[in-house]
């Protein structure tokens, strides 16, 4: 589904990504973790072309992201993305947030888009808030709406860029529950997150990054029980003991 081959990116002399290679198969759930500044967010943003990269190749469902001839908008419409800061559109009601891209990008009818939006809103447990505006919801609620908004486009895969990092601790689980459910239904997911509990529960593979390189790319069990690199061992020792 997603193939990342030898991707490198630099700003001037500063290397953000160095020779990153991995793949995500259909139905697979991948967790990307690592210290801050390791390039996790940049890597995931390269997948749908929000960040350009200088060398290497990323293929999403047969389409090359780096190819200048690729219609990126068309590709992005099929790849769902959830951001750290939710990024709902504050001037639109929740239902409008859910419907706008369906009507403007997928050219669905207003009623169809509304129905679909409300169904997904119900699924994330927020049907009662349909008429509200983003600023009137809590962070956790906003993030659940953002997930519903991405799902409304019937994506072939979902990218999560630290979806719980900006949330109050109390609200982390309501978002992780939605993500877990999604994973169990067989959605292809690439998640940048520090939530190791989530990774242990649903991930198939864990990618560990440091200084722009993919240091580990292991099956979940191997990663947690027996990480090969010293850097990953240190990282896990620091975040797992509490």
């Amino acid at each position: 589904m997603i193939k990342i081959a030898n991707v490198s990116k630099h700003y001037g002399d500063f290397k953000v990504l160095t020779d990153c290679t991995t793949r995500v198969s259909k139905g697979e759930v991948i967790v990307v973790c690592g210290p801050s500044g390791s390039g996790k967010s940049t890597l995931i943003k390269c997948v749908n072309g929000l960040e350009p990269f200088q060398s290497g190749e990323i293929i999403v469902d047969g389409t090359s992201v780096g190819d200048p001839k690729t219609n990126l908008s068309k590709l992005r419409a099929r790849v769902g993305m959830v951001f750290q800061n939710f990024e709902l559109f504050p001037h639109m009601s929740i239902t409008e947030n859910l419907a706008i891209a369906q009507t403007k990008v997928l050219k669905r009818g207003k009623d169809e888009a509304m129905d679909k939006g409300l169904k997904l809103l119900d699924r994330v447990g927020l049907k009662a808030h349909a008429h509200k505006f983003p600023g009137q919801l809590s962070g956790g609620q906003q993030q659940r709406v953002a997930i519903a908004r991405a799902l409304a486009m019937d994506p072939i895969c979902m990218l999560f860029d630290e979806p719980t990092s900006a949330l109050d601790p109390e609200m982390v689980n309501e978002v992780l529950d939605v993500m877990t459910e999604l994973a169990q239904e067989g959605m292809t997911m690439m998640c940048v997150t520090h939530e190791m509990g989530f990774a242990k529960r649903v991930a198939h593979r864990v990618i560990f990054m440091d200084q722009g390189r993919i240091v580990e790319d292991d099956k979940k069990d191997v990663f947690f029980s027996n990480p090969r690199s010293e850097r990953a061992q240190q990282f896990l020792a620091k975040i797992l003991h509490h």
Partner: protein
Amino acid sequence: MSYQWNWGVFLQPSASGDDTYLGWMLAGFKMTIALSLTAWVLALLLGALIGVLRTVPNKALAGFATGYVELFRNVPLLVQLFIWYFVLPELLPASIGDAYKQSNPMLQQFLASMVCLALFTSARVAEQVRSGINSLPKGQKNAGLALGFTLPQTYRFVMLPMAFRLVVPPLTSEFLNIFKNSAVCSTIGLMELAAQGRQLVDYTAQPYESFIAVTLSYIAINVVVMTLMHKFERRIAVPGYIGGK
């Protein structure tokens, strides 16, 4: 001081004989309104366009917009007015220039004033719009693009609706400024409010009454503008956001 106050001067028949001095003031009042409103509409449209262009990734477009802003905001308004009114007709191809110079002088004054005020103000509007766009969280643009919107659609549906809401207060100031700046156009003979006030002094020797009336008229216009803009600001406020409920 032995000044002879005479508020009745406004009701006296004017020197031209077919009107009162109050009629002169009203004509100036109407001219100020017509000039400022038409110039404002143009300034808003042009300024929005140029402000957006300053933020786009295309370097040529952004560079053009930057040049535009720097040109119109770094030359004094009065100089710009003289260029539009005195210099530009000479630079036009002779046939067009001559036709223009033979048209109704009032029309010439009005057009030069309107274009001058519109372009001068559009550069300032463009800067407000640009700052509004740049003050949005960067993630908003990414969120629009990630949903499959093209860049123009992202501006149209995601960024501009919020950016314009953010800049309504500074745009209100520009709206007020354009009425005040329009007084400069009296220098090329356009008979707007300030010019009528001065003409009234020439004919009646009642400067205090005249300029008090002019002052109050400008204040009245701007109180109305401020009230309407505050109403507008409240109407477009976003619930749960700055200024909203």
